[in-house]
């Protein structure tokens, strides 16, 4: 036990000697979460729109002002003919164009159907889809008003839909994304720390010195793990505070459970790093392995931005290999749904097992002999 204590003391001393690293590990996650938290919105706002008003009537201006007044669209320009729209879309100065036909007001007054044309830039398919949806419901609602004002039909549909969105009634994508960013930041920072831990000593030749000490393999791994775990938990507290106090993400579940689960998660991220560190012979190898084979899959396949249920059936089973997948379900469960272990135990168990297995592998692989 004293041997373990000495090793841990050595690790802490090394961390203290590298103030740059210490600063990065503490400051960068807070800074990044604060900025990225604002970026992570899939809501489509302020879509730049160009208007071709061929009618120039009170009615057409009324319709245009409806678009402009909504938070989703901003009318940036008006063109005289549909041919001019081309240039706006090519340059990306506008994403959508609304074309109001010359007989628009006449048809409205006569109670005939009028067709509005919307041209959209599909290169950002996701946003365009959402924007077209907004345009559709805006026009549908306005059409009902117009029809009711002319005594045809009622202002309200016969069958209404009462939509209730649970857990996130304002459909704030931030509340959903921030726990994810938090998890990824922890992953990046802690995996990096531990992935260099052993290979660094190999490359610098100091592992030889450790090899002649009576340190057991599990002691080497534990002694490397615990100091980083302490650092990781400091990071957890910092980023969780930013999420709760700065972004006011609701925490509906238990705070203690949240911290406990973060600790289990750190076990798997640090364990993963240590494992990479034991199988690499240079730090560069460790970096390439970590970034390509572990971090990139976690960013894309864990359900952080892209829902797993949308993925093809062949790829979905792969996601079970990713610890972040379980942690995201746990985090979102605790933050947004306020559920506890009674619902989350399968994920918690999987996460714990993942950490335990990878640590075991790291211990088995860490031969103290070189080469």
């Amino acid at each position, binding site marked *: 036990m004293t041997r373990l204590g000495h090793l841990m003391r050595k690790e802490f001393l090394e961390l203290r000697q*590298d103030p740059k690293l210490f600063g990065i590990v503490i400051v960068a996650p807070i800074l990044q979460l604060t900025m990225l938290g604002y*970026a992570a919105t899939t809501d489509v706002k302020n879509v730049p729109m160009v208007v071709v008003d061929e009618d120039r009537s009170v009615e057409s201006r009324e319709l245009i002002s409806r678009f402009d007044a909504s938070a989703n669209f901003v009318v940036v320009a008006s063109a005289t003919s549909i041919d001019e729209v081309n240039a706006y879309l090519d340059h990306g100065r506008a994403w959508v164009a609304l074309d109001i036909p010359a007989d628009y007001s006449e048809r409205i007054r006569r109670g005939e159907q009028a067709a509005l044309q919307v041209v959209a830039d599909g290169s950002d*398919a996701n946003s365009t889809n959402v924007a077209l949806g907004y345009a559709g419901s805006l026009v549908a609602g306005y*059409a009902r008003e117009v029809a009711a004002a002319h005594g045809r039909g009622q202002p309200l549909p016969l069958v*209404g839909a009462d939509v209730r969105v649970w857990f996130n009634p304002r459909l704030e994508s931030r509340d*959903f994304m921030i726990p994810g960013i938090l998890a990824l930041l922890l992953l990046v920072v802690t995996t990096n720390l531990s992935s260099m831990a052993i290979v660094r000593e190999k490359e610098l030749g100091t592992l030889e010195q450790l090899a002649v000490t009576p340190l057991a393999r599990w002691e080497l791994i534990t002694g490397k793990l615990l100091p980083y775990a302490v650092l990781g938990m400091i990071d957890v507290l910092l980023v969780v505070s930013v999420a709760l106090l700065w972004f006011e993400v609701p925490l509906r579940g238990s705070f203690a459970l949240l911290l406990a689960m973060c600790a289990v998660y750190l076990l798997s991220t640090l364990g993963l790093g240590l494992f990479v560190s034991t199988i690499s012979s240079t730090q560069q190898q460790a970096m390439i392995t970590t*970034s390509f084979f572990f971090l990139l899959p976690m960013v894309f396949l864990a359900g952080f931005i892209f829902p797993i249920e949308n993925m093809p059936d062949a790829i979905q089973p792969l996601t079970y290999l990713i610890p972040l997948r379980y942690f995201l379900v746990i985090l979102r469960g605790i933050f947004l749904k306020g*559920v506890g272990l009674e619902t989350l135990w399968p994920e918690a168990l999987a996460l714990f097992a993942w950490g335990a297995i990878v640590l075991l592998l790291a211990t088995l692989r860490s031969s103290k002999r070189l080469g």
Partner: protein
Amino acid sequence: MRKIRAIGVKELRQIVRDRARLVILIFVPALLLLLYGYALNFDIRDIRLAVKDQDRSTESRELISAFVNSGYFQLIAVVERDEAIVRLIDRNEVRAALVIPPRFGRDASTGRRTTVQVIINGDNANTATTVMAYALTLVSSMSARYEVQARLGSPAGPALVLEPRVWYNPELRSALFLVPGLIAYILMITAVVSTALSIVREKEMGTMEQVRMSPIGPLAYVVGKSVPYFVISLLSCIGIVLLAMALFGLPMRGSWAMLVLAISLFLVGTLALGLLISTLAETQQVAFQIALLMSYLPTLMLSGFIFPITSMPPFLQVVTYVVPARYFLVALRAIVLKGVGIEVFWPDLLALVVFAALTLSLASLRLKREWA
């Protein structure tokens, strides 16, 4: 020039000797694109639905089958009680629930207003917005049918119809939008990862002293270091683009020369960024940490890859100007999807040139100070 070549040849020898690294730098990017190109999409279908039908009439069954037949919803469970809905949503077994009130059929067919309830799991706001839009469309088209039956609405249909036309990507396939983003992302990570350790490594191992004593200037050293990686990454990137065209139907509407120019400018900038990180750090660990923090999340979230920059708050839009992938993405999408010429995206290319010049000169300045 000879000095640059000497450094370049030395670096290339080191890369080639480390066979595994060479293979990774050339082939892994393509492999990643292959995997993620298939995995990632925003197209939402087969939304798992629970139904609580308190009416059990012809009309209520009609509404349920309208949901199922739309192709967007998949009926998972028919429940009797509200608690069952809570349990199903808590456990992620369903994403949405449809609650049909008693007397729904009688009200709808006799023209009395009635309301169905749609409950959506909002934990993923993006998916929830789409699910909501599908549900609202289905309910309102059923409503229109009953209005005509009850002689309330005009049989001619709604007074206004919207005719959408989508350019550049008429089927709104999310692959066409995501694949260019993925290309930029993978390129950025590969470039930064391959150079971030290259200088600091020599510092840590003590071989930097030898370079310092040689008659090679800092700029020649930095340029020489990046040339081999530039060639490797350029080849690998062109491979990725061809792969994307063959497998994901990525079109090529613009000019190849422009594409290669844009890729080259972006690569020089990102490789130089890696080198700059390498000159700033004292240990490989610090370099790795900075490289990761500067590339992984910022490129993912601030480049317009997934989240549109126009939707971000103004101060953050300013921050995105220092993310090089932002400019590359505009140029890449403009070339392959829109097929427009340089007159449209020259400001973005210019920004890439400025970024590359800035990082290269900062890296060599920093090295000069260290060597002095």
